[in-house]
C-alpha cells in the first residue's frame, strides 16, 4: 500500500475520531450541567465501570467493521458467557479461573466458526453472525432452561463489581475500569501497533485488490471475528460481574456496539476507522443513555430521542467526512 493512497484515509479517520471525542465531551458536559456531581472523579469512575462492557464490545466489533463485516453475534456471546459462567461455576469460587479460561476458549471457537463461514463459505457476515446469534441464543436457552440458574461467586463478580475505595486523587477505582484500560490498550496495539490494522483496512476497502496485493484476506477476516468474540466474552464477564446472572444480559448489545463504532466515525462496510472510533463512540453512546436516564423522561420518549440522536450523529459524521474529502 502506497503512502499517497493511505494518507487521505488516515486523515479522514482522524477528523471523524475528533467528532466522536467532541460528541462524548459535549454529552458529558450536558450530564454535568444537569447533575454537577458527575464531575466528581468517583462518579466518573462509576460511569466508566458501567460503560466498560459496551466500550470493550465496540473495540472488538471495530475489527470486524474495518474488514467490511458485521458481528451480530456479540450480544449472544455475552448472554452465553454469563449463562455458561453461572452454570459451570455454580457458586464455587475455586472454579472461577478455570471457567474463565474455558469461556475464552469457547469465545475463540465461536469467533473461529464465524470467521471460517465468512471467509471460506463466502456467506455474508451479516447472515453468518445472525445465524450464530440465533443458534447461540438457542443453545443458552436450552442449557439454562430459560431461567437464570447457577450462581456467580464473589471472586467472579468482583471483576465487574469491585471498587477500591479511598484511592488518592480519584476516590474510588473500579476493577472494571482497570480491565477496560488494559483490554483497550491490547486491542489498540493489535490494530495499530502491528501491521494488522492496515491489512484489515485494505481488506475492508477492496478485498479483491487486497488479495492481489498479497494480503492474506481469509486470515485477516477470521482474526477479526475471533478478536470480536473474545472481546464479547470479556464484556460478558464484566456484565455478569456488574449485575449477576441474567438470561438477557446481552440482548441489544450487538446493535449498540455497531452504532458505537459508526458514531465514532468508522465506516460501515469497512475501509475506514481506528480503535478510537470504537472507544469514543461507545463512551458517547453510553453518555447518551446516562443523560436520558438523568433527564427523567418517560421511557417511550427516551427511546425515540435515542434513535433520533443516533441517526443525527451518524449523519453528521458522514456529512463532515464527505465535505472534508
Amino acid at each position, binding site marked *: 500500500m502506497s503512502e499517497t493512497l493511505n494518507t487521505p484515509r488516515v486523515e479522514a479517520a482522524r477528523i471523524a475520531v475528533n467528532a466522536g471525542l467532541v460528541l462524548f465531551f459535549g454529552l458529558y458536559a450536558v450530564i454535568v450541567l444537569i447533575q454537577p456531581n*458527575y464531575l466528581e472523579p468517583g462518579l466518573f469512575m462509576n460511569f466508566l465501570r458501567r460503560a466498560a462492557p459496551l466500550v470493550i464490545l465496540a473495540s472488538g466489533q471495530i475489527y470486524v467493521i474495518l474488514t467490511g463485516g458485521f458481528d451480530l453475534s456479540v450480544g449472544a456471546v455475552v448472554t452465553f458467557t454469563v449463562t455458561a459462567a453461572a452454570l459451570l461455576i455454580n457458586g464455587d469460587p475455586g472454579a472461577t479461573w478455570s471457567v474463565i479460561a474455558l469461556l475464552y476458549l469457547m469465545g475463540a471457537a465461536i469467533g473461529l466458526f464465524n470467521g471460517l463461514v465468512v471467509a471460506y463459505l463466502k456467506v455474508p457476515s451479516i447472515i453468518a453472525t445472525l445465524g450464530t446469534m440465533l443458534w447461540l441464543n438457542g443453545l443458552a436457552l436450552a442449557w439454562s432452561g*430459560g*431461567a*437464570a440458574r447457577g450462581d456467580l461467586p464473589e471472586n467472579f463478580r468482583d471483576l465487574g463489581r469491585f*471498587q477500591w475505595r479511598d484511592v488518592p486523587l480519584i476516590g474510588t477505582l473500579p476493577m472494571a475500569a482497570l480491565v477496560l484500560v488494559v483490554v483497550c490498550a491490547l486491542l489498540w496495539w493489535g490494530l495499530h501497533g502491528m501491521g494488522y490494522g492496515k491489512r484489515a483496512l485494505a481488506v475492508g476497502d477492496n478485498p479483491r485488490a487486497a488479495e492481489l496485493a498479497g494480503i492474506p484476506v481469509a486470515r485477516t477476516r477470521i482474526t477479526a471475528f475471533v478478536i470480536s468474540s473474545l472481546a464479547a466474552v470479556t464484556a460478558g464477564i464484566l456484565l455478569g460481574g456488574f*449485575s*449477576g446472572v441474567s438470561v*438477557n*444480559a446481552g440482548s441489544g448489545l450487538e446493535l449498540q456496539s455497531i452504532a458505537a463504532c459508526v458514531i465514532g466515525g468508522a465506516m460501515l462496510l469497512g475501509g475506514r476507522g481506528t480503535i478510537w472510533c470504537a472507544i469514543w463512540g461507545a463512551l458517547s453512546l453510553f453518555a447518551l443513555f446516562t443523560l436520558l436516564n438523568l433527564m427523567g423522561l418517560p421511557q417511550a420518549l427516551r427511546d425515540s430521542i435515542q434513535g433520533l440522536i443516533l441517526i443525527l450523529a451518524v449523519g453528521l459524521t458522514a456529512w463532515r467526512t464527505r465535505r472534508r474529502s
Partner: protein
Amino acid sequence: MQKKAMLATTVALFALAGAAGAQEFNDPAEFARQRAQLSMTPQGPEGQPWAQHLGDSMVDTAKWKKDGPATICFSNAGIFNPWRVVGMHNFQAEAEAQGDRIKELIVVDAEGKDEKQIADIEALVAGGKCDVLIVSPNTTAALTPAVEAAATKLPVVVFDRGVNTTAPVTYIHPVGGYGFGISSGEFIAANLEKGANVLALRIVPGVDVLETRYSAAKNIFDEAGLNVVGSEFTGSDRAKTKSVVEDYLNRGIQIDAIWMDAGDTATAALEAFEDAGLPYPVISGEDQQDFLRKWRDENLTAIAPSYPTYQWRTPIIAALDILDGKPVPGPEWVLPQPAITAETRDGYIDEKLPPLHYSLCGCQDLPGYPARWGGSD
C-alpha cells in the same frame, strides 16, 4: 382481515388515548374486590392452595362427564419468561402425578403470537382428539372468539390471563394484579413515615397484569402521603435495573423504599445500594429464591407478594374434575394469593433451587422435584 383491522384500531386507540388506557388499569371496584379477597379464608383442601378457591360460586359440569382416561389438550401462550418456565414444569409434573387418569397430554406453544394461538386452538378442536381444552391466552381480546368457538365443542378451562366471555367452564386465576400491588403497597406504607420517597421499578408498560399492580400500589402510596420519586421500566434486565437505581442515588435522591412490579431483578436493585455504601431500603420483591435468601442474609425490611405459579397445577385438576362431572368453582376460580412475610419466609427458601425459582410453585410434592425445576439433589 376484519379482525386485523379491529386489532389495528384498538392499538391505535390505545396509543392515542394513553390517559383513557390508564383509567382501565385503575378500577376502584376491582381494587376493592381484590382487597377483600386477599383477607378471605379459602375453601378446599388445607395446605394445597392450588386446589383451593375463594368465594362459593360453583358450576355444574355433568354434561361434560366422560368415562375412561382423558386426552388433555393445552394451548399455551408461550414460555417467554422465567415465570412461565416454572409454571410449565408445574403443569407437566401435575399431569404426570395424575398417572393413569390421563391418556395423553397434548401441548402446543403459540410462541407469544396471537395468530398462532388462534390457529393452534382451531387445529386442536378440529383434530377431535381432545376431551378437554386448557388455554392460557396470549392476549385477552384477540383470543376471545377462538375460545368462544372451542367452548361450543368441548369443555374449556382458561387460566392466568382471561378472555372476554363466560363460554369456558371456568377461568382460573389468583386474586390478581391489584392484590399484588395492595400487599406490597400496604407493607411499604406501613414501614415508612409520611413524605418518604419510593422508587417504583417496573418491567414494561402497557401489560394489564402489571399496570394494575402499579396502579394499586400507587393509590396506596398517594393515600399514605408517600412520594413516588420515579417509575422506571427495566425490561427485567439486571444491569439496567442496577444502573437506573445508581442514577437515582447519584442524583442525590434519598430512596427510602423500592417497590417492584416483579421481583426478578430485586437483588440487582439492592446491589446498587451496597455499591454506593448506603443502607438498604424497605423493599417489595417477589417470591424468587434469590430475593428471599438476600432478605434472610441481610435481614431486610421486605415483603414478597406473589402471583403464584402453583396456578399452573389447577387447570389439570379442573379438567379432570370436569370430565368426572364434578362441580368446579366457576365461572371464575379464584385462587388464594399469599404474600411471603418475614414470618413465613424461611419456609419458602430451598437452597437446592436456582436463584430465579418462584417459591410459591406448590411443587414440592410433585414428581421430579427439585431436578425438574433446575434444582440440584
